[in-house]
């Protein structure tokens, strides 16, 4: 068997980072762009080759493991830098490199006039390296390396325009909130190591059923801790607060990191550890509830936001909620399916929003847009595709995956979750079409200056939009419902999830059709309401807003969660720190340090007399010392 050379996939972006650092500005903008895009494109091709190799294997043997080198070996413990490709990571690696490549290309146009062009691609490539490491790792430790790496890059890229205070603050917030999640992940990892004696996936998963009793306290705690890590990285309740603020970063970053790839790491991790999670039904319950709650909660906030990127950010949080919902009800395949389709249409939405922002000279407020459909035809068309896709209208991608999640929830005995999901779908369709209408339809509310500079984006930005639009349409066709023996996507992932004995949702055909109908009706309802309120009768919308003013205010202020956290977490901590500073540090630590200093100063004032500065004197002392030493020896 020819080796698939997995290590090359993450190594390529890393090499690009190194080259970028070494060659510096000598590359020029063009060179930097080619280097960055070329590395990621090549990584995509290598990944594709590896996946083709993988697909040629018999179904039961579809795992490729490649040990690059042994990182450390301490007693029994051994950590390898080794990579694993199985159907699950194959999906992830293709999504990451493919969407990543498109976004890289897009960025060359979007960032073309930025002063820190080179730094941007440096971070972006570094992110690709970390993300690919995360996805391809074959043990928890290496995954954690990637996990932290993407966190770092996310921080760097959110604060990319560090001269804007808001960007710096947002970066800091993302970093700190993620730390809490990482803490959980780390603890979960420790527990796994303590009980299973290894961090290698294969060994842990093989050992888990024997070590942990079904539903035991240990495995529940461990998986809950892992899930805490996932909520941090994937922006779920209670740690979702950083993601909306992360929109301070450049829009391609929002598309790549905060929509398509990094934030899905939590879902990926859950799917990867499905063996463990299925041993802990309680945790799965928690996952499902939190997923559903986040889906609904974030969707409602999305209704009231006026910043185009924030709407998308809350939409991302909400859609991630759907994915966790799927995992929580045991439908990991559906979760990963939604992850993939979401990557396509959400990246497209962000990139389209970026195109709009680019066209309007950095205007992000929906209230100052409108009527752009004729001025930005390409952007409009692709955005429309994405909006329909996320709203869940067949045959667009979002429909298939969302429907699968909902029917799985229903079939696996979570009608409450199903209901929340359907309501969420209505709201999703509503706020997405609100965004679409406010942006592209109706009268133009542009400022005069923005109107003047209005222009369609360059080809390098349009091309990725078109490709992603195509993917948003056809991306779901790999998983049509009602297939005998599961659809193609499910069959592909079966080697991974088969061991977990996923409960087949054996619904009668009639029920299935009914569920499909319900979800289509929900989507259409949301769309219709949106059109009525914002396009046909704007005045009725205003009236409605006034009638439900408290609700509107609550959504606009995002349920005051940030303020709540500020009051119960941030302020007490700041107070404690302030006390520590004023008393402990200023008085005790400084006192001790200064005291040592004063003492030494006094002593050295005496000793300084010996330092004459003449080498001869030193030599004399030295020789005297030698003489004394010899005398000492002579006496014995």
């Amino acid at each position, binding site marked *: 068997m020819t080796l698939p050379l997995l290590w090359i996939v993450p190594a390529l972006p890393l090499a690009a980072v190194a080259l970028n650092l070494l060659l510096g500005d000598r590359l020029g903008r063009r060179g930097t762009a080619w280097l960055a895009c070329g590395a990621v494109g090549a990584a995509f091709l290598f990944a594709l080759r590896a996946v083709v190799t993988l697909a040629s294997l018999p179904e039961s043997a579809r795992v490729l493991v490649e040990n690059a080198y042994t990182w450390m070996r301490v007693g029994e413990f051994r950590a390898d830098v080794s990579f694993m490709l199985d159907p699950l990571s194959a999906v992830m690696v293709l999504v990451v490199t493919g969407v990543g490549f498109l976004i890289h290309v897009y960025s060359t146009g979007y960032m073309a006039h930025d002063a820190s062009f080179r730094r941007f691609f440096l971070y972006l490539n570094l992110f690709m390296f970390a993300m690919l490491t995360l996805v391809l790792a074959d043990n928890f430790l290496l995954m954690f390396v990637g996990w932290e790496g993407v966190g770092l890059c996310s921080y760097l890229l959110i604060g990319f325009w560090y001269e804007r205070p808001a960007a710096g603050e947002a970066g800091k917030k993302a970093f700190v909130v993620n730390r809490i999640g990482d803490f959980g992940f780390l603890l979960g990892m420790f527990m796994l190591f303590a009980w299973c004696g290894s961090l290698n996936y294969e060994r842990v998963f093989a050992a888990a059923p024997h070590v942990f009793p079904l539903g035991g306290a240990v495995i529940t705690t461990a998986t809950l801790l892992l899930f805490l890590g996932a909520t941090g990285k994937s922006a779920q309740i209670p740690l979702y607060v950083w993601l909306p603020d992360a929109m301070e970063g450049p829009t391609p970053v929002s598309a790549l990191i905060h929509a398509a790839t990094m934030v899905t790491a939590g879902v990926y991790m859950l799917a990867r550890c499905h063996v463990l999670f299925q041993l802990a039904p309680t945790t799965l319950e928690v996952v499902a509830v939190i997923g559903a709650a986040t889906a609904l909660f974030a969707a409602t906030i999305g209704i009231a936001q006026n910043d185009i990127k924030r709407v998308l950010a809350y939409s991302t949080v909400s859609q991630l909620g759907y994915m966790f919902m799927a995992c929580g009800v045991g439908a990991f395949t559906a979760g990963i399916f939604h992850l993939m389709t979401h990557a396509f249409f959400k990246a497209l939405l962000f990139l389209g929003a970026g195109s709009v922002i680019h066209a309007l000279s950095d205007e992000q407020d929906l209230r100052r847009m409108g009527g752009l459909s004729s001025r930005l035809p390409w952007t409009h068309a692709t955005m429309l595709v994405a909006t329909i896709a996320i709203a869940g209208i067949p045959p667009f991608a979002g429909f298939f995956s969302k429907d699968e999640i909902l029917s799985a929830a229903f079939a696996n005995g979570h009608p409450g979750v199903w209901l929340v999901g359907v309501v969420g779908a209505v709201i999703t369709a509503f706020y997405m079409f609100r965004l679409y209408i406010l942006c592209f339809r109706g009268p133009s509310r542009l400022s005069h200056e923005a109107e003047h500079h209005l222009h369609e984006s360059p080809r390098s930005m349009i091309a990725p939009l078109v490709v992603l639009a195509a993917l948003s349409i056809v991306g779901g066709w790999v998983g049509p419902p009602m297939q005998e023996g599961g659809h193609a996507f499910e069959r592909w992932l079966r080697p991974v999830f088969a061991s977990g004995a996923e409960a087949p949702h054996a619904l009668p055909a009639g029920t299935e059709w009914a569920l499909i109908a319900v979800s289509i009706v929900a989507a259409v309802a949301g769309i219709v309401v949106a059109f009525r309120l914002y396009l046909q009768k704007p005045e009725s919308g205003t009236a409605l807003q006034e009638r439900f003013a408290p609700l509107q205010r609550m959504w606009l202020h995002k349920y005051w969660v940030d303020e709540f956290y500020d009051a119960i977490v941030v302020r007490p901590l700041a107070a404690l720190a302030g006390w520590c500073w004023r008393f402990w540090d200023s008085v005790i630590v400084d006192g001790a340090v200064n005291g040592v200093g004063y003492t030494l100063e006094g002593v050295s004032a005496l000793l300084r007399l010996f330092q004459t500065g003449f080498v001869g004197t030193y030599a*004399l002392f030295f*020789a005297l010392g*030698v*003489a004394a030493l010899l005398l000492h020896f*002579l006496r014995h």
Partner: protein
Amino acid sequence: MTPFLFLGFAALLVASALMVVIHRNPVTSALFLVLAFCSLAGIYLLLGAEFVGMVQIIVYAGAIMVLFLFVIMYLNLSHDVESGVQIAMRRALGWVIGALVVAEGLLLAGRRWFPGPDAHPIAPLHPGNTQAVGEALYTRYLFPFEITSILLLVAMVGVIVIGRGRGAAAPPAAPPPDLTRGGGS
């Protein structure tokens, strides 16, 4: 005959070493030091260390001392001025302490390591001294040997950096020493 040669070389060595310390002209000191090194090389030969003896001449006499002479000539140093009460006192102190150290060293050596004539039977001068040194250098002492080469490299870089001064930022240095008045006695 070897002991006589040894004594001769030793006498030459001590005498020239003393001249190094005593003579006021640095060039003369340097030349006596060359002589001392050559006599030491002779002693090495007598002790059966041919390789070290030859390297002693090549490295010390052929390279290091030439460098010394270069610097002395470059700085155009003539006789050292050694006068004044303070200097005289320091000199006296130096002699006393130096003599003390020598005396102590001799006493110490006499007590510990003077067991009479060499206890070991004299091994015949095995012909492969160079070979033996080389084998030791390239097998057991390979790592130190490589480290030494790095040390030399570092020294080389250091000397070039020091020798260049601080480039354009260097303060206006003293006018270059007048080479033409070399050898003023």
